[in-house]
């Protein structure tokens, strides 16, 4: 047992104004009238979670159950309102497809842009360039602007960049549902290879079949709380029953 992710009593509270205040003017008026009422919304409520090295943990739950918030807290994007988050190792979140890419830049230029966004130094990206291009199966398209790519190509490039560096903790949010069957299989093989090498993976998906086949453990989130945690077969069965 070698914990790489530890969450203790983690809560995330959004303080949303009751009425949507979009503009500065409106805000100023509301504040002057002492009229801003806030509605508290707990996206995560007292979550305790420990993930060990080498696990592929599935996270399931309905929309708005707090799945993405949980990933954000782990990826250091969101500082929890309460509780403590501790992480050991580099977290690589696979970007939602297209985010961080620029349509006018070539595939090669986008690899450098995306790679540095993920925090890798330029020299390292340079040395991994052949590997990234090959896995993404871009071929001659590598020097064409990204706007000429098919959505499948963009997806392959994104996955390829994010997973070229053997991640210590890989975060996948609904990304395996894109791309064709062959590429999905390739992604799966790569994830399994990394798992065998000791990488930890967090997988969020609506497809409970994927969780069953890929994950060792699963967490069922509901209204920001952990409803159940256990072996993926068990949790998926429970989840399906409730639907």
């Amino acid at each position, binding site marked *: 047992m070698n914990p790489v992710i530890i969450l203790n009593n983690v809560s995330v509270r959004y303080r949303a104004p009751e009425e949507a205040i979009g503009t500065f003017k409106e805000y100023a008026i509301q504040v002057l009238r002492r009229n801003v009422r806030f509605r508290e919304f707990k996206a995560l409520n007292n979550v305790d979670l420990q993930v060990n090295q080498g696990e592929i943990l599935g996270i399931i739950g309905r929309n708005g159950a707090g799945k993405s918030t949980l990933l954000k807290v782990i990826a250091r994007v969101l500082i929890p309102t309460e509780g403590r988050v501790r*992480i050991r190792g580099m977290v690589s979140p696979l970007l939602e497809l297209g985010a961080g890419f620029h349509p006018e830049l070539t595939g090669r230029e986008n690899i450098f842009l995306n790679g540095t966004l993920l*925090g890798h130094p330029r020299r390292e990206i340079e040395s991994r360039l052949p590997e990234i291009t090959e896995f993404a199966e871009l071929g001659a398209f590598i020097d064409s602007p990204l706007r000429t790519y098919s959505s499948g190509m963009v997806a392959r490039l994104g996955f390829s960049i994010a997973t070229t560096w053997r991640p210590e903790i890989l975060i996948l949010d609904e990304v395996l549902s894109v791309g064709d069957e062959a590429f999905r299989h390739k992604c799966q093989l790569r994830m399994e290879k990394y798992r065998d090498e000791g990488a930890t993976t967090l997988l969020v998906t609506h497809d409970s079949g994927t969780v069953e086949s890929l994950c060792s453990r699963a967490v069922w989130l509901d209204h920001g709380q952990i409803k159940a945690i256990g072996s993926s077969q068990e949790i998926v069965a429970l989840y399906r029953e409730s639907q």
Partner: protein
Amino acid sequence: MENSILATESQSLDTVEFTYDSEKRKSPALEELQDILQYKDLIFQLIRRDIVARYKRSVLGIAWTMLQPLGMMIVLTIVFSHLFGRVEGYAAYLLSGLIAWTFFAQTTTAAIFQSVWGGALMRRIYIPHTAFPVASIGTGVVNLTLSLVPLLFIMLILRRPITWAILFLPISILSLTAFALGVGLLLSSLAVRFPDISEMYQIIIQAWLYLTPIMYPSDILPASYRIWLLYLNPMYYQILMFRVPIYDGVLPSLPLSMIGIGISLLTLAIGWIYFSYQADKFAYTA
């Protein structure tokens, strides 16, 4: 019984080295500074993206960076040279102020838009929050350096002497950069919460341009206005520090430089600290 097991477990965890611990964080401003230095390659890529993507589909490409201020200068010179005809080499006077102003206006505006664009990205992956504002200022410095070419060209045409004082320019540019970054950071932290700050700022920057002696000589201002438009106008010092070594060919006076640089560093410090403290909340404003 169960409790005691948990206790020993958490004790052993305390000896483990964590890469990230939400409870053990340094001061946000320092942490931000440390992170941005680690991400310097990203800054370079973002600057490159801004410059390359902008001109990718244009024939003249990067030449536009030099043609733009030149075009603006020609229009304004035609309009104003009669009015301010007594200003020697009016075109050079105008252009030297205009270039510094354009840098400030463009980079602060870009910083706001970049923060909003980057905000979407920063809700998904960790990137130092200052990366986008810093990169837009960096893009501005590249453009500013390029627009020195048409400026020197105009100086030569008007037969104005170019002196050693021009070597002071890097200091002027650094001061201007620090000021622009400070203002850009302050505006960005507001714009993430209130998107219409950027619209409001467009009006302010327009007014500010006309209230700063860029198109007109400062001595036409009545004495009663001077304290407001000159001495209390931080851009007045920045413009002078940039203009004097080129147009007048002399070093800016020591008090002027001290005040100018002082204002810049103070603005940068305030902007940086405020922005870093606000940055944790950015992800909450979904």
